[in-house]
């Protein structure tokens, strides 16, 4: 446990002392502020649905930047050799890196809560879809960070890691379009791999265990593959 906390603290420091974290948070908030204001003034409707879809896209674009250094940097600088010759397991290393990155995603979501609070002060929003939207975003973030961590653990070049995860995210975003061209039962299988298909119900106020299960499964698979990639030396 002590080793895990030490690793977690190291990762948190690495993330929150890096300018990347603040650039990502700033870009995230500015873009959302713009969308929030515009949507509110144009529609005069107290809803965050547009904002949730915007955060969905922003997550696809920013998570690769957050996760790209996690293992790739350690591989490049060979500190992984130093780390994995101490009595810490690959699982501990991966979990510490995962939770630290997730904390930055959580911070971004926390900051976006300002818009929900503003909406609550200015009008009378339906809080149900807002809660479900945030649950969906948290689950989406968990899955994306796990995939980003996995691609980072495959290579020693951070840019390559970021491009790999971005490509995967974009593929999983539009994969349901591809499903339309496939015969049964492949079309259903491919459509169900889409991030958007599983996120849309959350953003519009519907909670399904199957959608939550999808994101949790992707997160667990990403973590498992990350551990395997780290153990493969």
């Amino acid at each position, binding site marked *: 446990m*002590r*080793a895990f906390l*030490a690793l977690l603290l190291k990762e948190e420091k690495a993330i929150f002392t890096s300018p990347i974290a603040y650039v990502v948070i700033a870009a995230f908030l500015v873009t959302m502020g713009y969308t929030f204001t515009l949507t509110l003034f144009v529609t005069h409707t107290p809803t965050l649905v547009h904002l949730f879809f915007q955060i969905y896209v922003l997550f696809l674009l920013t998570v690769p930047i957050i996760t790209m250094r996690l293992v790739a940097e350690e591989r490049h600088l060979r500190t992984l050799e130093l780390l994995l*010759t101490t*009595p810490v397991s690959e699982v501990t290393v991966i979990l510490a890196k995962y939770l630290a990155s997730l904390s930055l995603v959580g911070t971004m979501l926390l900051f976006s809560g300002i818009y929900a609070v503003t909406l609550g002060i200015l009008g009378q929003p339906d809080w149900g879809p807002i809660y479900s939207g945030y649950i969906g975003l948290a689950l989406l973030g968990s899955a994306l960070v796990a995939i980003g961590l996995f691609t980072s653990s495959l290579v020693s070049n951070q840019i390559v890691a970021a491009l790999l995860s971005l490509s995967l995210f974009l593929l999983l975003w539009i994969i349901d379009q591809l499903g339309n061209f496939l015969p049964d039962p492949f079309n259903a299988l491919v459509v169900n791999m889409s991030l958007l298909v599983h996120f849309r119900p959350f953003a519009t106020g519907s909670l399904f265990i199957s959608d939550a299960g999808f994101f949790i499964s992707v997160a667990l698979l990403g973590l498992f593959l990350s551990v395997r990639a780290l153990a493969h030396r």
Partner: protein
Amino acid sequence: MSDIVVVEHLVKRYGPRPAVRDVSFSIAQGEVVGLLGPNGSGKSTIMRMLTGYLPPSEGMIRVGDLDVHTDSLAVRQRIGYVPEDTPLYEGMRVHEFLRFMGHIRGMSGRRLATAVTAACEQLQLQRVFKMPIGKLSRGYRQRVAIAQALLDAHDILILDEPTNGLDAYQVIGIRELLRSFAGQRTVILASHILSEIEKIADRVMILANGRLLTTDARADGSAPRIRLRIVGPSDAVLADLRAVKGVAAATAEPQHGRDQPGTYFVEFVPGVRAIGELARVIVARGYPLLELMEEKPDLEQAFLNVTSRAAAA
């Protein structure tokens, strides 16, 4: 003393290319062992397999009763490791790094603080204690890497090229530090610098092209010989020396006068060290014996012998 590290038929392949080929050796507790070989001979790969960082393609490594591959975490608890080229966390300060390495080894509180202070004193790191590692010179970085390996009271220290980048004074310091562990901790160090290994290690193993050529270069490379200074007729002295049981060969340096002391070299047959008998015979024959000294085998010569034998084979 019992063997603390046992390596049997170790093989490591990177794709089809074998980097380590059928290497077997054992190391006794408290021994200081050097792994000598040219760059690319497989030293670092063996070091990485000993620490559990790399899995072997074939073969087995045991530390005490533990298998390095299957009981990796327990083995790592017993090993302090300094990798080649000192990979360190550049953004951390020296004290942060040492505390971090102590924490992930399960140390804390007063025990950790004492260990960090002691390691810094041993490696003379007090002056750079609060400096970021990224701003340190190569010599200091090397010392920080060694300091982290000394934090816990490990049974085994594994150091890959530990004196790289150090100046002459620092090299002497590290050499004395490592020698001071002899008998207490098992030290395994790899180097391509022959003179360095010669001064630190009790026993030297030689590697070339992934093959272990000898597990004791001093014993295999050339047999120890006895140097004597005796007054007497050269031919008669040589005949008497050769007649001693166990003597394989006796030679003499050219003598300048019949009554002048002559220098003789005696080699024993393998497994025999009849030094007492040699002295007794010389004295019994009535020759004044001025000097009798066992000459240590020359490691440089041993290295050349072993590597040329391997090349010829």
